Structures are given as structure tokens and as C-alpha cells.
């Protein structure tokens, strides 16, 4: 019965259901052990692993989603396709995800080009990023970080679930350290010829 209840709760919930929330809801009817809930979740996850809908842990909660393999057929349901993400948007998002909290100037320094307001605005609008606060430097620029919605929409359990950036660029990272990568904000050492932001 526990499995059935869990399954039903996750399906009926309009947002990913966190473990705690799930437990609290179950507790209202009868006492449950966390370990039992955990076991039920993983057996459900396993049960659905090879089906058209899958039980996924995203953004700190559990949710039913269609299997990526079925994407093409599911898309036939609707006329409109989600717009492709531009490279500038993706790059900006990647920098924010890995460098958070970060400012627009820091993103611009990394990308070597101005980050337009429409990019930041677009990311804010999708609720993938949010303003975390202001950096204590002249101008008090906004500090950006990713939102829970980012994890949900990209199917990530948590930020730790992001690809390991060091593994991705192993060889280059070493070099980066050797070269003592100039900090975007206080870059004066080696780069007199550097373009001034």
C-alpha cells in the first residue's frame, strides 16, 4: 500500500515532491518509517526505469516524466516546439551555474563579450536564474545564481549533479592553473594589453 500511496501522491502533485513532504503527507494517515519510504521510492524508480513514464528525482523532489526516448512521439501532441536556446543564453547559464554567485561583469569577462539584458532577462523569465543579492563592489552589481526551476527543467537532482567541470577539461585546467588565470575583476598582473571592460 505504501508504494501505491507514494505513486499516487507523486502523480497528483503539480511539482516535484520532496522526500520530506512525501513523508509528512504519508504520516498524516499512518506512521511510516523513512527507510520504508526510501525503499519504496527506489523500487518504484526501478520499476519505471524501462517504461514510457519514469520516476525521476529533479530539483530535490520526485516527479513522473515521460522517458526521453519517447520525446519524438510526445511532441506530436502539440503544434508548437520549444524554442531552441541560443548559444549565448546557454553559455551565460553555464557560467552562472558553475560560478554562482556571479555578476554580469564576470560573465562578460569570461565570454569576452557584452551580455545583453535580453539574455539575463530571458533566463530570469524562465526562472532558471535569480538575483541572489548585490556584490559589495562599486556599482553594487546584482549577483546571479541558479534557481530550483533550473534543476527541474534540466533534470538535475542538485547542483552536484552538474557535469564535473574539472573532468571535462582535465588537461586544460592544469594549464589554467599554471597560467594563473586572471580574475575577471582584478586582472592587472599579466594583461596590460587586456581590453578594458
Amino acid at each position, binding site marked *: 500500500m505504501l508504494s501505491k500511496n507514494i505513486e499516487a501522491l507523486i502523480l497528483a502533485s503539480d511539482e516535484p515532491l520532496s522526500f520530506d513532504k512525501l513523508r509528512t503527507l504519508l504520516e498524516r494517515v499512518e506512521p511510516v518509517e523513512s527507510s520504508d519510504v526510501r525503499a519504496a521510492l527506489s523500487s518504484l524508480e526501478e520499476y519505471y526505469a524501462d517504461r514510457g513514464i519514469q520516476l525521476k528525482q529533479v530539483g530535490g523532489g520526485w*516527479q513522473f516524466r*515521460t522517458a526521453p526516448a519517447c520525446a519524438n512521439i510526445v511532441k506530436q501532441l502539440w503544434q508548437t516546439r520549444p524554442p531552441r536556446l541560443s548559444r549565448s543564453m546557454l553559455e551565460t547559464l553555464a557560467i552562472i551555474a558553475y560560478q554562482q554567485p556571479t555578476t554580469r561583469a564576470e560573465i562578460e569577462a569570461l565570454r569576452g563579450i557584452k551580455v545583453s539584458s535580453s539574455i539575463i532577462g530571458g533566463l530570469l523569465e524562465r526562472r532558471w536564474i535569480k538575483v541572489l543579492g548585490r556584490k559589495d563592489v562599486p556599482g553594487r552589481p546584482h549577483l546571479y545564481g541558479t534557481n530550483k526551476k533550473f534543476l527541474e527543467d534540466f533534470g538535475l537532482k542538485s547542483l552536484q549533479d552538474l557535469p564535473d567541470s574539472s573532468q*571535462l577539461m582535465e588537461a586544460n585546467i592544469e594549464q589554467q592553473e599554471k597560467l594563473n588565470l*586572471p580574475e575577471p575583476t582584478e586582472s592587472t598582473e599579466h594583461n596590460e*594589453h587586456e581590453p578594458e571592460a
Partner: protein
Amino acid sequence: MQQTAENNVEQQMFAGMETTLPLLPPVQLDSFEGPLDILLQLIRKQKMDIFDIPMATITSQYLAIIDSNKELNVDMAGEYLVMASTLMQLKSRMLLPRQEVDEEGNEIDPRDALVAQLIAYEHYRMLAEELDEFPRIQRDVFKRSVFPESEHIERPLPEADLEGLLAAFGQVLKRMKSEVLHRVVLETMTVREQIQFVTEALQQGSKQFHELLHGQQSREALVTTFLAILELWRQHIIQVIQTQNNACITLILSVSNQTDIGAKPNA
């Protein structure tokens, strides 16, 4: 094309750093996201060593690309020009003997900072590509309520046509005929009164067409009420809904008029 391009590059590399002849870019850039992106694409597509960038070659290739993209928008152009001057400066510094040394006495390559910048950028460019491949909601995977805005969607109710309404009225009248009426006093009703009646009835919620006419005793009352309904419909105060042909006709107040209690006067 690719072969000649590579030969071209090789020739340039062997020709030495001094070459200042502008040469056409040997690679076609798909599109670019800023000066660093152009440089990286040039370096990677020509398999250049990023730690030993041939400055003369890359500078002239870069300038050629900038030149052929004069229509770059003004806002963006600034960064491209700054990079152009950086490259030219580096190119000339490469020709001079190294004067700068670090604490350990090693020569500092003037290209170091640019290389670091390029590597850092490439790093994030790869992460961005990686991120794009994640199964994304609404592109690769879908959840139960697919459209986040679905709560706000107002689904239009199927609208009935005048013909349907007239047909329904005809049926009511037909039913009337079979009833024998004994009426002595002639009731005089106005459309205006009936508008008030219909609006008030609908304030309580939607009503079926025949439900609304049911209480009306006389043919005159029926006709007057029907006229009131038509008038309200014409003024968009009510909505007339029929889900399919010959089905029941439902009347409801238009959303925008639900608070508007007073009935509009007869036109």
C-alpha cells in the same frame, strides 16, 4: 576546400611570423558569439596549438573576418575591435625580445593572458554544450502538466449559433401549443423587464435555455424573454453555449459582466 585551407595555413605558418599579407579565413565560421569565440573556432578548426598561437596568421584571419562582417551591430562591434587591437599588439610584441620575467626568472609569454582567457571561455563553452544535452523539460521529457501557463489559459466555450437558438425556441413553442391556456387578463411585458429577469436568473449560475423559458406562461412572455436573451447575447452580456448540434443550449453571463448586475436597457 578543406585541403587547400590547411595547405594555406601551413604555408602561412612556414612563412613565419613576419607575414602581414591579409589572407582570407581558411575556415568558414558557423556563427560566432564574440571575439573569443572567433579565435577559438579559428584555432580549433585549424588544429593550432593553443599554447603557441601563430599570432601573425591568427591576426590576419581575425581581421579578415571582422572586415567581412562590417554590418556587425554597433554595440557588439566594440569588443571585436578591442580584440583586433589586442591581437595586433601581441603580434608586434612577439617580434621583440622578451623583457618581462616572472619571480623565477622565466620569460613571460605575452600571449599567456589571452590563452588563459581562451581556455576559460572554451571551458564554459563545453559546459554549455554539455548542459544543452541534458534531457530538458518540454524538449526531451514532459511532465503531467506540460504548460506552466495552463492554469491561466481560458479555454473558449463552444459558441452556439442563432439557428440553434431559434430551433430550441421553436421546440419550446411547440410544447406550448399542446398546453391549453385559459387566460383572461393580458399581461404586458417589456423586453427590458425580461432582460432584468434573465440577468438575475443567470447571476445564480448558468441556466439551460429551456429551463429559463419554463416558467413563462404565455406565448407573449416566451417571445419577450426570447427577445431579451437575443438582446443580451447581442450586447455580449451573456454567452450562449451549445456543445454540439441539437444539444441543450446553456446560457451564462459573460465573464466580464458577472459583476455588472444592472441590465442594459433595450436598444
